[in-house]
């Protein structure tokens, strides 16, 4: 077991962090919005956290505690998301998706040009404070949050807004506000995941949190199933793990498998691997079978 962990431990760490990114993408989809913006917010949050640590270390002092960095990440990510949401959420769905891609592109340009803070193309080292158990704990806490969220007032509002925004509005749900909350919360998660990602790679350059990651996090969410929070996590695990396990057999063409897998899932399982509708159908079937058995 421990040998397994020596080989694959780092893969799992990336997978768990990707799970957080996928959850932030999922939050957007849950409110009926295709947004890649959390990666841009993650970038902002990671740079702020990295810079704070860098300054401390350069002064020869001890780095801030991990909790502080996580907090900073969430605040910065959430704040950026909240501010930009006022402009972005005004756009129609197509344009919104385009604008959030643009935001990711712009985040990189900003990082490149604020080189006195970010190190520009050279980047900035990030001291690692995180352990696998920290990441698992964080993912666990976030999962519990999503579990509570799902059956809360907010979760129902999100369901309604995604499926029929007009009906939701006429039932008294403030669609824009629900979307803004989801967008901001996605920013908070993005910021958190950004700080973790930066600590995992231990070095932050503008391309660390960029379009590829944005696409992959959306893809993980859809792959695993964007209708319940378990889906994005499963998607992220599979997405990271499968090519890793295939590497001994396929070598560098493992990415091809990843791409093909994605296409196959989209073609044959458009609702993703984890579909709550399927579960409900099963549980109803089981219940009816039980009642039949009781009756007979």
């Amino acid at each position, binding site marked *: 077991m421990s040998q397994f962990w020596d080989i694959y431990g780092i893969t799992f760490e990336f997978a768990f962090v990707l799970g957080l990114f996928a959850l932030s993408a999922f939050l957007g989809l849950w409110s009926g919005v295709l947004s890649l913006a959390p990666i841009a917010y993650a970038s902002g949050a990671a740079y702020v956290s990295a810079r704070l640590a860098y300054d401390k270390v350069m002064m020869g002092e001890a780095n801030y505690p991990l909790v502080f960095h996580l907090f900073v990440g969430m605040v910065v990510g959430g704040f950026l998301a909240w501010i930009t949401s006022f402009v972005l959420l005004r756009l129609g769905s197509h344009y919104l998706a385009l604008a959030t891609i643009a935001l990711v592109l712009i985040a990189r340009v900003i990082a490149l040009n604020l080189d006195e803070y970010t190190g520009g193309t050279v980047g900035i080292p990030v001291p690692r404070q995180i352990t696998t158990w920290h990441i698992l704990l964080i993912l666990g806490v976030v999962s519990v949050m999503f579990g509570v969220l799902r059956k809360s007032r907010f979760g129902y509002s999100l369901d309604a807004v995604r499926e029929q925004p007009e009906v939701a509005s006429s039932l008294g749900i403030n669609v824009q506000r629900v979307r803004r909350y989801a967008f901001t919360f996605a920013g908070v998660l993005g910021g958190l995941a950004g700080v973790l990602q930066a600590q995992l790679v231990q070095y932050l350059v503008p391309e660390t949190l960029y379009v590829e990651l944005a696409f992959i996090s959306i893809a993980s969410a859809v792959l695993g199933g964007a209708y319940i929070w378990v889906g994005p996590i499963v998607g992220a695990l599979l997405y990271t793990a499968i090519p890793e396990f295939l590497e001994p057999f396929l070598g560098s063409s493992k990415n091809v498998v990843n*791409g093909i*897998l994605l296409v196959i899932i989209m073609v044959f399982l458009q609702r993703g691997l984890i579909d709550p509708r399927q579960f409900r159908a099963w549980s109803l079937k089981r219940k009816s079978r039980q009642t039949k058995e009781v009756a007979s």
Partner: protein
Amino acid sequence: MGPLLTSQKKRNENLLNLFIQQVLNGLAVGSAYGMFAMSFGLIFATMGILNVAHGTIATFGAIAALTVVENWGFSFFPALLIAILTGAAIGIVTDRLAFQPLRARANTLGYLITSIGVWIVLIALGETALDHQIKTFPPDLLSWPRLVTTNIYLAPGQIWLMIIGPISVVALYLVLTRTPIGTMIRAVGFSDVWSRISGVSSTVVILSTVGISAGLAGIVGYLSSIAFDNVSVPLGEGLLLKGFAAVVVGGFGDVRGAFLGGIIIGVTEVLGAQYVSGDFRDVITFGLLILFLLFRPEGIFGEIKFGAAR
């Protein structure tokens, strides 16, 4: 006073020459962006696919051309033809394999995710084909036309971009507005179902659109890889990002708008890099992008809109 005046005049002349040189550079780059934007926008407008693999298709145009030039000594024009055919073939094959099965229940998100899958595959294949290197075309492939004065220099690759760019936009515009297949492409872009009741075959329309669009991407990949002396996977990714910005600026409802968007971005980018700061090159591009998204999301030319028909 005399010599000072001459030197002042000389400096002005130099400044003017520099300006002209940079505008021409901008037009060449802009042509590449514009052509790419047209082809990317055409797919989006007709089929609703935001195809992130489109830049990689351009790369493959360049790779295929390079292969035939290096191995079989193809000259410029035959290699151009190979680039077009390769682009079109990859476009059509990926459409049949990846996008066609989704068509009955298609939505933007589904297409986007699928295109990400295609993109990952194509990038991996492209990197393998290029052996993870940046290659260049042999310098003797193109020695004309070349514009060299004491102050202005334009390479053949740039000049061909500036020639073929405008030709392609006029040609594509005429095809879309004056030919039966163009009319059908626009009709399917507006409504697939209600075009079919006129007997329009959506398969024919989709295959032509993909063929035209991906073929054009092949041209752009080939010409820009000559102009920028760079055959590599990142070349296509760069085209994708800039072409995407150009589509937003120009609007994807009209190929003229998309091309113009490319020119605007190319010229401002090069001039901005010269006169403001080289570092801010991309800031200008994406700043324009954001401004347009915020204040004119439908682009310069906009979409043709009508009241609800009932």
